[in-house]
């Protein structure tokens, strides 16, 4: 048993920390600290900063222009980027399509798309969920029919995160309706500027625009936009579900969140004293801190397993479940710490000098509501429990 990082890993941590201190622009840091939506310009600028350093494709091997990090280095990078108030890397091209092309793509596809992902030429989004296919993803209906050397696609995708910025979408499409559901799905790349693709915004619970519906009406794309074999798209979808999930606990974000809640509780006055001195509130914070401390270790234990076995095990679903629940609890504490001062709609008091929430906390209620998504997306926590039932309990 040794809970310490090696001297090399500690040196790497310092290198990452120094990098962010020197290279992360103040305006980006401030935007992340405020919470809420980041502009496309900010995210692209941030990606370019990392790309210049060779650190953008955090899961990519060196041969494709990634840094070739192992699970521990990725973990250290995640922790330090959170601590520096750096944005989260937009995952669709870098964390999802990139690794898929590296494993399943043709040489031509790799040569064309991978550099464009790193260089920010293409913004990718994900076409998985449909109105009738959420947790039961394999029941998806968006239809792709081969017509000569083209696919003709009809159907609808939904919950398409940041699709409003996207140039391309990777889609799971039904290509054989007459076989078992999982065996008739293909993974197809679609240029969003193709005639027949329409993006409609979905306004979220807190008022933000981060997800969309994407409609496909007789959309024609080259047959060569197929990734992997025809009707083998489900294999790719499953690969993505197990690929690099050790960061899924969001421990870095929760650690930051905890510190913010503690700082906030020192500023908020209740019954003539700082809220931090209210034993009931302090106990709630302490309990979240304890759960997070355990989560940190659970995360490291699973990292260790991933490093030892070359791949994370099915128990990473525990990280998803518990990690999101802890983060949601912290968001709840951030909202409740403010009491009624969390109530104004984001931006209502901007520019008035009448702010009711301490600096950086005006969006706490919005962040709380928005964050309810984390236990729903990426395989809902109930789906994670189904996975664990099969893999860990054998029931």
């Amino acid at each position, binding site marked *: *048993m040794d*809970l310490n990082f090696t001297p090399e890993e500690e040196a790497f941590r310092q290198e990452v920390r120094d990098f962010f201190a020197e290279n992360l622009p103040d305006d980006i840091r401030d935007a992340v600290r405020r919470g809420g939506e980041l502009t496309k310009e900010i995210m692209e600028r941030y990606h370019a900063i990392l790309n210049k350093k060779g650190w953008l494709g955090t899961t990519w091997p060196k041969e494709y222009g990634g840094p070739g990090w192992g699970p521990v280095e990725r973990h250290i990078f995640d922790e330090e980027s959170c601590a520096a108030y750096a944005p989260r890397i937009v995952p669709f091209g870098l964390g999802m399509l990139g690794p898929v092309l590296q494993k399943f793509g043709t040489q031509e596809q790799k040569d064309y798309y991978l550099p464009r992902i790193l260089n920010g030429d293409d913004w990718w989004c994900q076409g998985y969920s449909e109105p009738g296919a959420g947790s039961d993803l394999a029941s998806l209906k968006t239809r792709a029919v081969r017509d000569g050397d083209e696919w003709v696609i009809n159907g609808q995708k939904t919950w398409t995160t940041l699709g409003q910025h996207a140039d391309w979408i990777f889609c799971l499409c039904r290509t054989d309706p007459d076989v078992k559901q999982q065996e008739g799905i293909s993974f197809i790349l679609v240029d969003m500027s193709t005639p027949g693709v329409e993006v409609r915004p979905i306004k979220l619970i807190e008022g933000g625009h981060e997800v969309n519906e994407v409609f496909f009406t007789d959309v024609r794309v080259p047959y060569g936009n197929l990734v992997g074999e025809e009707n083998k798209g489900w294999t790719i979808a499953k690969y993505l579900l197990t690929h690099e999930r050790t960061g899924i606990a969001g421990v870095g974000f929760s650690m930051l969140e905890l510190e913010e809640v503690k700082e906030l509780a020192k500023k908020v006055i209740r019954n003539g004293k700082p809220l931090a001195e209210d034993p009931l509130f302090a106990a709630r*914070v302490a309990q979240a801190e304890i759960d997070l401390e355990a989560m940190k270790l659970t995360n490291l234990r699973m*990292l260790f397993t991933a490093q030892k076995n070359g791949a994370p095990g099915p128990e990473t679903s525990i990280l998803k479940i518990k990690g999101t629940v802890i983060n949601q609890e912290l968001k709840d504490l951030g909202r409740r710490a403010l009491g009624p001062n969390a109530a104004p709609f984001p931006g209502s008091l901007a520019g008035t000098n009448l702010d009711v929430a301490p600096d950086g906390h005006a969006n706490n209620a919005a962040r709380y509501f928005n964050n309810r998504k984390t236990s729903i997306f990426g395989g809902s926590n109930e789906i994670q429990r189904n996975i664990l039932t099969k893999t860990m*309990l054998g*029931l």
Partner: protein
Amino acid sequence: MNFDLTEDRQMLQDSLRRYLADKYTVEHRNKVAYEDPFHDDAKWTELTELGALFALAPEEAGGMGGAGFDISVVFEELGRVICPEPVLGALMASRLMTAAGADQEELLSGATKYAVGLGELDAPYDMSGLTTTAKGGKLTGRKSIVYGGQAADVFLIAAKDGDSLNVYEVKAADASVTGYALMDGAGAAEVVLDDAPATLLIEGAEAAIEDAVNAGIVALCSEAVGAMDVLHKMTVDYLGQRKQFGRPIGTFQVLQHRAVDMLTEIEQSRSIVIKAAAELGGPNASRYCSMAKNLIGRAGRLVAEEAIQMHGGIAMTWEYPGSHYAKRIIMIDAQLGDTDYHLARVAQAA
């Protein structure tokens, strides 16, 4: 970073697991745990011959271990069979004697059984409320729920001499000792001291007591992890076997998800014990031990109650082994500071 046990600890774990599985079956355990003297003296001797106690003390004190991870290996195995032997008293006494630089050969060989009397009726956890006093080398007061006290030859007793919190050694023969069974098996004693002859072991013992309590917390939390792991497996096995409505009840998602939630909390428990064990003896030990005891108190209650509920009536019976595991897991919370006590400590330190 490495979460594998060292080879030595792996061997200790293997030999303890083999021995306990073979010799401490739950039938045997239940026979001895609820009948005077509430443990099995022959098994105690065999256990000590396996080196279970030597693993708890550092080399400079005559032992072969004494680190947090040594303690957690031993107690996790004891927890897996809900062993009623008074090993916790030996551990905590050993920590105090190591602090005092006292010879502990008799303790580590198992020849002399020790129990530690810290808590009192109205001050079960916190030493600030002690009323046992020392005067001219003699102790007067009452120590309550002294775990393992029914079998002890020697007590280490916390008492106040004026403003000084000290630890004294008292022979069992010099105290009035009333032993009894505990709800969850094993024994304890009420120890009444009436001008009892005592030997001063540690003067100004706050730090030594804190360390002994922290070691005890690592032990109890590890014991709980072992017991929770077994009870969870028992529950999952039962879900796979028990049929209602024509199919195994483990095919019902409502039970599957609850069994997964138990697993999640057990993994979190394991994690926080690793952290507490790693910090034991260091400047942050008390903080992480409090975190561990709080989390395990919560997780233990969930695991024990859900195990009973998901088994249904069978786990309400004395005959079913799971019921005894559930009792032990629940009652561990009341030893060395419960969930709320330790939550308050973490909150105050923040």
